[in-house]
């Protein structure tokens, strides 16, 4: 898909206007803290993975995605997944009242005392596979134009573009399939593209540059 989240190269979005680093708070409102923590804590229940979580935010209309603040998009994503997994009903969202108990057997909610350990451990996405690597550093590859209609980590500005494999990262869980609930390993590569290959000569503010991205083997074809 090319969703509203796929922003690389989009024009007309205005200036960045960064807040000064020394005075920017981590959160800008109490509700931002709560939705951030809720997303992590509910995610820990294992009812969906990170790619499904991303996809839930991306599935909004472009109008909504771009008009919402960052954590508002997190809120939309979390509610979408809670509904889809049957953990909360629409009626409950509407009324704010619990109508039905969720069976928590088999679910182990995150405990406050375990938070430091859980965060320090993280979750590696390295995953072994018998598949041989199809590419090696130095190879020229083209990013496939056809991508799934669901979640993909191929930015649209790179589709059909030719780059050079710079590094083989090993084998990682393939995000596009993981978003469908299928945990499969694929070879992951760091690929370099020239600004000229992506944008032609029309690079603003002068000077060519390079873009490095990480893509999985199914995203690539021999040039």
């Amino acid at each position, binding site marked *: 898909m090319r969703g509203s989240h*796929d*922003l*690389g*190269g*989009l*024009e007309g979005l*205005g200036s*960045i*206007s*960064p807040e000064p*680093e020394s005075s920017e708070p*981590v*959160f800008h*409102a109490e509700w931002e*803290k709560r939705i*951030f*923590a*809720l997303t992590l*804590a*509910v995610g820990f*229940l294992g009812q969906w993975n990170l790619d499904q979580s*991303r996809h839930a*935010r991306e599935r909004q209309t472009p109008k909504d995605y771009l*008009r919402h603040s*960052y954590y508002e998009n997190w*809120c939309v994503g979390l509610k979408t997944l*809670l509904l889809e997994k049957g*953990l*909360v009903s629409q009626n409950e*969202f509407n009324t*704010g009242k*619990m109508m039905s*108990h*969720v069976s*928590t057997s088999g679910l182990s*909610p*995150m*405990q406050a005392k375990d*938070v*430091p350990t859980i*965060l320090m*451990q*993280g*979750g*590696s996405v390295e995953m072994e596979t018998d598949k041989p690597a199809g590419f090696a550093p130095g190879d020229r590859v083209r990013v496939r134009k056809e991508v799934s209609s669901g979640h993909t*980590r*191929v*930015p649209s500005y790179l589709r059909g573009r030719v780059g050079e494999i710079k590094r083989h*990262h090993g084998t*990682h869980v393939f995000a596009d399939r993981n978003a469908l609930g299928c945990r499969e390993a694929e070879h992951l590569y*760091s690929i370099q593209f020239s600004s000229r290959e992506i944008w032609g000569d029309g*690079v*603003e*503010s*002068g*000077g060519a*540059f*390079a873009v*490095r991205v*990480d893509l999985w083997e199914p995203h690539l074809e021999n040039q």
Partner: protein
Amino acid sequence: MTSDDHHSHDHTESPVDLALQVKALESLLVEKGLVSEETLDALIETYEHKVGPRNGAQVVAKAWAQPEFKEWLLKDANAAIASLGFTGRQGEHMRVVENSAKVHNLVVCTLCSCYPWPVLGLPPVWYKSAPYRARVVRDPRGVLVEFGTSLDDDVQIEIWDSTAEMRYLVLPERPVGTEDWPEEELANIVTRNSMIGVETVHVTEDGDNSGAKADS
């Protein structure tokens, strides 16, 4: 009320509505036994007060001060960073890229907001904003100007778009005049923005960027 007013009323959440909506959601999930308030507090506490860019600054300072650590960091960032105790969520697969007089690295996630949490904490608003994500892969020099950063024309810019679970930390160039500084003082001048790559590290006339006075 005009139809436009009505339209915006229907479709834009006011901050108050949002705060109430999130509060209601939290109550519901607590009542269902899916989360606890103490757990939420602990998560917030971690990223508001414990895990942040001072971690990354320690990594950078150590790399500046100890050539063998720098070599390790550039070769095996995961192990080198873990040796300082910074591991975990959104930093499981780290890579450090080095800035020099010839190469300037810059990190973005055009698709969402991927960012190395264990070393930098949660990303600033601008990093997650649509304008930054859209522009930096097309007009990096223009973006750098917004941060007050201008590079010589012959500096090669490399932009790292975090499209998978690899997370990138920029090792900024060490400013001249800091040769004799101890690690702690070096860490004080390393900014978050320099480790994302939108700024370079400077030593200001009255000491450093953080206000902590350096002796040298």
